């Protein structure tokens, strides 16, 4: 076992543990914070797997922007603690069945992978990666910009206070 594989298993344990904690928290703030840790773990994993640029983006966008946005909304809405069961019975029993079947499928997938060599270490240098993106994925970049534009317009209209919108309409 190399030092890299040791790091991988450590990170895997961290990710699984924090994600599991996150999805079982009753307190949304706790859940989000655990998830931030999980995403940090993912970022480190990306680094380990030779994607430093993605690691940085994961930290900046996922753990940074997205989770902070969540945190912000959770605090803004001040959602009160629900007294109900955290996993309603009618929902988690079928979900448990689904889990079992899914794990079976996962096991089949994993056992069926041929030529399962150990991954070599390699690094996609950010500059080379960016060059590659703009050479091969130029169209996708443009489309992604349109997605962001549409999401922006959507967030603007959906998030707008109805009262304010109506006032403007009435004028």
């Amino acid at each position: 076992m190399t030092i890299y594989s040791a790091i991988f298993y450590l990170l895997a344990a961290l990710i699984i543990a924090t994600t599991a904690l996150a999805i079982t928290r009753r307190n949304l703030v706790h859940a989000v914070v655990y998830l931030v840790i999980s995403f940090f773990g993912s970022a480190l994993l990306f680094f380990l797997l030779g994607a430093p640029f993605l690691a940085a983006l994961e930290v900046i966008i996922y753990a940074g922007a997205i989770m902070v946005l969540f945190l912000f909304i959770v605090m803004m809405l001040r959602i009160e603690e629900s007294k109900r069961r955290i996993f309603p019975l009618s929902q988690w029993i079928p979900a448990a069945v689904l889990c079992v079947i899914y794990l079976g499928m996962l096991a089949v997938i994993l056992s069926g992978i041929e030529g399962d060599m150990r991954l070599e270490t390699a690094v996609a240098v950010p500059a080379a990666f960016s060059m590659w993106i703009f050479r091969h994925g130029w169209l996708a970049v443009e489309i992604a910009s349109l997605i962001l534009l549409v999401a922006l317009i959507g967030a603007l209209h959906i998030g707008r206070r109805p009262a304010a919108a109506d006032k403007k309409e009435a004028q």
Partner: protein
Amino acid sequence: MTTTATLSDPNVATTLAACAAPLLAFAAIFLGARRFARLSAGLSIGAVTVSLAGAVFLLAANWHAEAPQVFSASWLVSDAVRIPVGVLLDPISLLMMTVVAVICFLVQIYSLGYMAGDPGFSRYYGFMSLFAWAMLSLTLSSSLFQLYVFWELVGLSSYLLIGFWYEKFSASQAGKKAFVMTRAGDVAFMLGLFVLLVGAGTLDVTAVNGPAAARMNPSLITLSALLIFGGIVGKSAQFPLLTWLPDAMEGPTPVSALLHSATMVAAGVFLFARLFPFFRQSPAAMGVFLVIGTVSMLLSSTMAMVSRDIKQVWAYSTISQLGFMIMGLAAGSFFAGVFHLTTHAGFKALLFLCSGVVIHALDTNDMFEIARKKGRRLKLAMICMTLAAAALAGIPPLSGFFSKESILAALAALDNPIWLAAALLGVLLTAYYAFRLIFIILFPRPELVQPESGRGHGSGHGAGTAMGSALVVLAAATLALGFAAAPLARFLSGDPAAAHPGPHLPWLPYAGIGLAAGGLLLAWFEFGRPAADQKGFVERVPALAALFANRWYIDVFYARLISRLVDRGLAWLCAKTDQRVIDAGLDAASKHIIRSSGVLSALQSGMIQHRLLVLFAVVVMLGLYFIA
């Protein structure tokens, strides 16, 4: 052995003109003439006159034709796919075409009087033309696929015609019942065609009746014959799908006369006759048909014995006579079935049209009510109705006697005497219920007759010229058609002797007459004679009467079965899914159900997370299925 004709052939040209005329009339009425009631009626009647003339010309021209004529073309869908379409002129299609054209023509003439002043007058004629086109094309189709298409179109136009007048029809259970039952039959028909296509590789009528079927596996023949017979059962209202027909009587009476007695329901029997050589390949299937025909005939006769609604009685008798035809065909006599089909079309249309006059004038369907309102004053209608009822009962020398007698002869040829016995019982019952109705109307009990002043608005209506002339023509046909047996037999099967199939039993006609007379006398004894209390022997046994009046509880059985299975099961689930999604907020009770009921109902509750769960589960299942 067929003759292939071309478009320039006068036969083919006439056929196409006869078929296309009603379609053109339909198009013209709906595209422009709708606002002008008289013009619409004129167009429609003109078109059907063209059809009638064409049919008569074809019949005359081909009276001595040696071989069926086929004109076929193919509809080029693309270079790989083509659908054969065509016209097949053989005795059965020519005869049926003539019958349909005549009845359509007379009913349309009659409707001039009956529908006068109705706001939907021109639409009515439009749909009539549509029906005429579909029905005529059905009779002439050369391939079963084409026949199926027109079969469905006939169903569609009948749906339009019934729903046309009676709003309540389609909204009520009755409409749904008619639709669902015939549709169930049609599904079987379609499956049968599919099996036939797979087995024989063709749907061409002449091929199926001839060489193609010979190549088929016998069990496949039986299977496809039984499935196709499912369609016949649906359309001709045979057991076990017989209960929709009486309910469909809600429509206007001319429509009942046209669709539910003479033409549309007879399409089932026509299909039987059309595929007669094919069906005959499977003795097992023929046995089943014989049973179904007999059961339908007896069941519906008993139902007719207790009904008070005049149209219902004729509806039951239609089922029973269709049962007779199927018995005749299934007994192996092509001629007997088709001949009875022809004569029945005449006298049954006459019965309905007469009833239409009475109902129109007195505004009631109940036969006791009609008697009370002095229905017998409507002389022409009552004379014609009595005549037709006598034909129905099989009293010589009317047409019904001859055709029924040839069916009896065919049945006598069978090894097992039980079929003949059943048919003779049917003759007795038929005469009884037909004359029960006649006597009730003709000889009302004096104490019940309404005083002169209260006759309502009806007295002036009676039968106008248009309606009356249609009645007279049909009455003449009822009188005369019976003597055409021998020439018709020669035409249909090339052998005049076919009019009397089976061993010559000298006593058989007398037995038929005797039983018919017996039924008549029984009816006279119970309803006609001055001292009669107008209570049938069936009604003296309450259990039996209830059984008959409730149609042997077939409907109840269906209601249980279908409502459990379909309404309560599937449709209920669907409706519930729908409700839960949309109206869940309005229904506080449903919240309780969501919480307390099990997983399954929660899955149907429309909660978004359950939907996501189903989504994920199906993806996982599909993945597993894929690799398994």
